[in-house]
């Protein structure tokens, strides 16, 4: 029997599109309609890890789930300061269990945000965030700025659903009713859809933003003719575009957070938007990558008070990015075991951190094999959230949505796996 499921959520990127149509036949997904290439590739699925595995004499050997849970528990109990990392591509419910686990074992919990929009969060701590939901932008924005982000490749449906090409109440004509400005170091696919593309030198975002703030603050005359390689008159023109918009929106990406200046770039951009509100209406939003990286920050914030990099070694939450964030913990060898869930630090962290992972016991929970598997001592395959398991995820604008279960599976969900590990830990502790 073929089952058509409407309004499915796509669990790929921070757009969290909720209008996907999926055709299920005999418990298998046959067709995906309405998703982008990234989303359909994920929903259609591919090679899975077949069985739990434990590394013996250098090789991963298939074992039962109970053995894997017990081994994982032993690793975590004997560690002095374990790291629980990932969380951006699983449900909020899984992270809730993870936080409980971190509390009980005195571990440190960090999300992939620290190597993504972590600096954006630090910027928000400095300045606050002047934002909105995506629908507000779709209905009102007549100027869209993409700064250091490339939705054409990273968030393919963003422009059509929410931003430059969307139709809304006060912008019924869609793309024609909006101006699009792209600021980047390279001419990306997104830049080719822009009315105006401003190319800047790598690592000069801070200077450019500062110059725009000065122009908007009426101090254009104090600026030199050339700012970090950009003519002043170009920036005056861009500042005018911003001030003359009825509703402007800046979307920014890793171009700001990964470059020289890091959180200061974001801090400056947030200030620019705050100041623009003295002239017109303006909002700003981070283009969050993983579908639930926003939710990971939300769950951590309401549970611990902090949105990432939370260390429970002292019994109470302690937060200090640069000290309790994954990269720093690994490169300083401040952790001695790692549970990696729904992420791939072996690919996405600098080599120096990956080498540290190679020196400690690693537990991996993931539906799929990835380079982190090469370093794992215990591998626990899980159900795919949003396809095989229900749960909650938060879109890049902070809107929470419920993920559906589309097909049955024999794999346990992340929540079930974490609960089983927790049960094993409690049992081990009771035995001692």
């Amino acid at each position: 029997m073929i089952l058509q499921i409407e309004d499915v959520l796509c669990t790929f990127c921070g757009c969290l599109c909720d209008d996907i149509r999926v055709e299920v036949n005999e418990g298998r997904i046959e067709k995906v309609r309405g998703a982008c290439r990234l989303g359909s590739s994920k929903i259609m699925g591919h090679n899975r890890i077949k069985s739990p595995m434990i590394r013996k004499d250098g090789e991963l050997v298939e074992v039962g789930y109970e053995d894997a849970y017990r081994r994982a528990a032993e690793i975590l109990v004997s560690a002095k300061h374990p790291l629980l990392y990932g969380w951006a591509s699983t449900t909020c419910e899984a992270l809730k269990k993870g936080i409980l686990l971190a509390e009980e074992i005195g571990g440190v919990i960090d999300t992939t945000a620290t190597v993504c929009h972590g600096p954006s969060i630090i910027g928000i701590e400095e300045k606050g965030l002047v934002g909105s939901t995506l629908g507000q932008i779709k209905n009102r924005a007549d100027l869209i700025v993409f700064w250091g982000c490339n939705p054409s490749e990273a968030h393919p449906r963003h422009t059509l659903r929410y931003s430059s090409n969307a139709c809304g109440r006060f912008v019924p004509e869609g793309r024609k009713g909006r101006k699009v400005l792209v600021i980047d170091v390279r001419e990306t696919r997104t830049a080719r859809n822009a009315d105006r593309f401003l190319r800047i030198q790598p690592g000069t975002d801070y200077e450019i933003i500062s110059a725009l703030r000065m122009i908007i603050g009426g101090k254009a005359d104090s600026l030199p003719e050339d700012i970090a390689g950009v003519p002043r008159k170009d920036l005056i023109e861009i500042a005018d575009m911003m001030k003359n918009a009825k509703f402007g929106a800046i979307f920014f990406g890793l171009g700001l957070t990964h470059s020289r200046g890091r959180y200061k770039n974001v801090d400056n951009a947030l200030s620019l938007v705050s100041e623009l509100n003295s002239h017109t209406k303006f909002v700003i939003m981070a283009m969050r990558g993983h579908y639930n990286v926003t939710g990971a920050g939300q769950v951590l914030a309401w549970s611990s008070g902090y949105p990432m990099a939370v260390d429970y070694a002292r019994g109470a939450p302690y937060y200090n990015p640069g000290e309790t964030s994954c990269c720093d913990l690994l490169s300083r060898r401040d952790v001695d075991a790692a549970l990696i869930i729904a992420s791939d630090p072996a690919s996405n962290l600098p080599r120096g951190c990956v080498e540290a992972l190679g020196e400690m016991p690693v537990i991996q929970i993931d539906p799929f094999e990835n380079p982190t598997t090469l370093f794992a001592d215990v591998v626990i395959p899980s159900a795919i959230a949003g396809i095989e398991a229900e749960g909650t995820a938060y879109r890049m604008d902070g809107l929470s949505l419920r993920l559906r279960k589309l097909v049955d599976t024999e794999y346990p969900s992340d929540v079930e796996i974490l609960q089983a590990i927790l049960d094993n830990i409690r049992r081990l502790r009771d035995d001692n």
Partner: protein
Amino acid sequence: MIIKGGIVYDPANGIFGEEMDICIENGRIAEDAGGEVIDARGLLVMPGGVDAHSHIAGPKLNTGRIMRPDDSRMGTEPRTRVCRPSTGYTVPNCYAIGYRYARLGYTTAFEAATPIIEARHTHEELEEIPIVDKGALTLFGSNWTVMECVRDNDLGRLAAYVAWGLRAARGYGVKIVNPGGGEAWGFGSNVKSVHDPVPHFDVTPAQIIRALAEVNERLRLPHSIHLHFNNLGRPGNYTTAIETLELLKDIKPSRMRQVVHVAHMQFSAYGGTGWKDFESKASVIADYFNQTNHATMDLGQIIFGPATTMTADAPLEYANARIGHQKWSNHDIELEESSGVVPWVYMRKMPVNAVQWAIGLELALLTRDPWKVVMTTDHPNGGPFVNYPEIISLLMSREKREEEMKTLHEVVRSRSTLPSIERELDWSEIVIMTRAAPARILGLEDKGHLGIGADADVSIYNIKPEEIDPSKDHAEVKAGMSRAKYTIKGGVVVVRDGEIVAAPQGRTYWVDAAVPESEMDRMLSALKEKFERYYSIRMSNYMVQDAYLSNPFVVRAGVQPLKEVI
């Protein structure tokens, strides 16, 4: 369980400090009972506290937490055998909210403002708040569908939408914040009076407020409309307050309660033409409440020190950020609202803050009927709720007020009437303002009193009302009220000697209001178009699912007379 020998205050049942035993069976107050005996000889016993207006869950809370790691560092308490770790002072984590309310002897707290589209998040946080029963009011004041129904003068469709919205949000009541202003803020402007039209919608705040009030009564909702006035926080706004209340005078309540509850009255009782000649108009407002019977208020008392302002009144937060040179978060919510969060500090030597502090107390002391007043700080806007014992001791002691005023800017004497107020509230009046009145105002029939069948939510304090003189012994009052000797929630001892000993999951209240099917169908066909064209999510993904209320308590209401109450 039997609570023996306490001095019981249960003003809803005409008990004003009598020595008596309280029996608890199956989570309710009973005629008699066996089991555990709690020795409360000579101690102050009252129903569990009810907070009718507090910001405890939802996106704006997390916005506050995320932008204020400095605040999270305050109030850190490690995990215990019973408790998860606590953090924060003005924006505590979810666990701290539950534990701290319980330690104060509070057993119920209602979140005051949730946009429908973000209600799922609110419920995710409510689920994580231990011990207390809770609910959330739902925002309707700048909603496109609401404004279109009002413009078309179609109250049938509006009633259907409000009922549907409460169901979608699993909400408890109709909250209106700076009506129309949230929409105007979508393009960076605001509405300046109740008769200032909302751009693009051809309605005025006055029309929105009246229509929602009428529909609220048509739906026989347990709570009245819950209103945050236009022009809140601005000098001279007391005229807006009275003008707005006058709009609602002729509306008949459908239940034994007010027609409008005014949120954090303190922020709307301001005189003056600007900050320089800012002064209290609390006496004018209190007179109005003394002469009318359709409105109730909560105080929104300020507490000196740090606060975090958070409200759906986004233009106000913009102004706060500019005045205070503070970091500013804003969050516009498609088709429904705007909102903002700004950290704040109330300072004793700041003239405006000193007068604000006096206004809250004046309102409580000059309004004759305590049933019209709920003690709140509009947590965390006026300051965190953990300071309620401070307010109680101020209301009970003129001496304490005098001592405090000596530490404040001198304008507190010339620009408020507080120095001349002699009234000192007694325990019954405190119990009314913190228990009985908020429960009645919210329409929580089983709370705020200790009659047979009421929820067994009881607080017992290490205060001997027959030995203590609160007027003089205000320090003891504050200390005693800060750490309940016992807090009993639903018949379970959750606090003993000021420490949490159990953390059961509370209930979440929401209102399911029935409307005629034809009205609902008519409303839904118009609403579907909103989702097709304007919302950024699908209608089928919009409503809060059952999974987000693990322990729901459904209150039935509706257009038709009620056949059954479950």
